[in-house]
């Protein structure tokens, strides 16, 4: 049974599936959806049965059209809007999930839609995917972190044009600039995301989370401090049972059997 109105949360074989579920509104991110995502995201880290999550959009037309324009201008005051933004820091919450987030993108991923995908770790796109940050066209700037996440994900030279022009880029261009990991036929989108998920799930899960943490924290540090942090993390990782098993398996030329799942 689904307890949510605007999203669907499911679990199967260690994978949490979060589906943006307002297909009639092209999965536009309204206040309700932000609330529900904010409610559901901690489950990914808290639930011991979940190893990682796949995020996707319901319906044929796209992943998400971005913020719901019908709610524009409904905030009681800018001061309250700003306060709510940080009291319910959805995008910060996305970025702080310690387990891997894979996002499967088809059709339109605009504004907050593409920004949500940029808070995830691995982006898989269908051939019909269209990405855009149209904010400048309506006198805005990206508001769900896009001006910060995109230049970190892809080289600055690749990020500036989409952000400044607001032009829509297709899947091939997204692949070229490094915004997405892979482009596949639409029919194969979810199975490809699951395939990537299974690869990651076959690795040591403590190592996967530490690696994600090292990358995330490291980009906010000077290189020297980042290297120190990494040295401390690898020293800790090496004390885990998974690392001992991984090294034993390597020596014996067999596949490791990692026991840690959460």
């Amino acid at each position, binding site marked *: 049974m689904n307890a949510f109105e605007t999203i669907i949360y499911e679990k199967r074989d260690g994978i949490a599936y979060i589906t943006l579920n307002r297909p009639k509104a092209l999965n536009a991110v309204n206040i309700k959806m932000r609330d529900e995502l904010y409610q559901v995201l901690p489950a990914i880290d808290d639930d011991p049965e979940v190893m990682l999550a796949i995020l996707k959009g319901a319906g044929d037309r796209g992943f998400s059209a971005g913020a719901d324009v019908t709610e524009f201008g409904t905030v009681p005051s800018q001061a309250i809007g700003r306060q709510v933004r940080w009291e319910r820091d959805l995008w910060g919450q996305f970025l702080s999930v310690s387990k891997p987030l894979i996002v499967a993108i088809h059709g339109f991923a605009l504004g907050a839609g593409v920004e949500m995908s940029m808070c995830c770790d691995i982006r898989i796109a269908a051939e019909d995917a269209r990405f855009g940050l149209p904010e400048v066209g309506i006198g805005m700037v990206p508001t769900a972190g896009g001006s910060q996440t995109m230049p970190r994900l892809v080289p600055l030279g690749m990020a500036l044009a989409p952000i400044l022009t607001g032009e829509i880029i297709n899947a091939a261009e997204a692949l070229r600039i490094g915004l997405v990991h892979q482009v596949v036929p639409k029919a194969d989108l979810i199975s490809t995301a699951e395939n990537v998920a299974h690869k990651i799930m076959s690795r040591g899960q403590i*190592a996967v989370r530490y690696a994600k943490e090292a*990358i995330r924290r490291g980009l906010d540090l000077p290189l020297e401090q980042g290297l120190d942090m990494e040295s401390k993390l690898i020293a800790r*990782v090496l004390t885990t049972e998974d690392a001992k098993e991984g090294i034993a398996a390597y020596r014996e030329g067999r596949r490791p059997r990692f026991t840690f799942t959460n």
Partner: protein
Amino acid sequence: MPYTSVKFERREQLVWLALNRPSVGNTINLQLANELSDACREISQADGVRAVIITGAGESFCSGADLNELASLTTNELIQANPASLASRAVASLNCPVIAAINGDALGAGLELALSCDIRIASENARLGFPETSYGLIPGGGGTQRLPRIVGKGKATELILIAEPIDAGEAHRIGLVTKVVPKEKLVEEAEEIAKRLISRAPIAVRYAKEAVNKGMDMTLEQGLRLEADLSFLLQTTEDRAEGIKAFLEKRTAYFEGE
């Protein structure tokens, strides 16, 4: 000092360094890391070395850390002297430009070593990647820090979390290597790049390397200030005067490094 795990060969202004444990894929153990550190110190202290090329003896560039040895180190030893970290720090400390000539697999600590170089070229057969999470480990020689700075957080996260090696073509496409050549052309191509680097004004090349690397760790304002300061310092060098003179006389400049 005699080296056993690395080959050190000086050819005029160029040094060739080869990881030299070909029977074990040039894996990095403490011995190799220490010798690499000594070699880098020797290069820094030597007169007139203007470029370094690092490659691997035999079929691999470097297939990773010596996991058997790694498992035997204590936590403290690892924090103090993780071989992968020692090796990549030693190479990163060189002031002159360093080219990685990736002649085969560059995996784990091997790729980390290549990331500490300034220019990476690869032979067509090379595979590059971070398999660490497959062994329940994470990269420990700067991979989680240097890779995102070089190819962006997006590609770095994919490579490290999915933990599957990519081929040389893909490495070129994502900007991890600047050129891919047939295996038999790799030495020639690396020397060609080194020759070009050596022909430039050596202090200027070193300052440019410093400006790019140090600048990435600064706010833009601070980075611009560093660049301007280095640029003003260069105006006091003989090489700068020679560079301008040669330009006006329409001839090739000859730089003394002074």
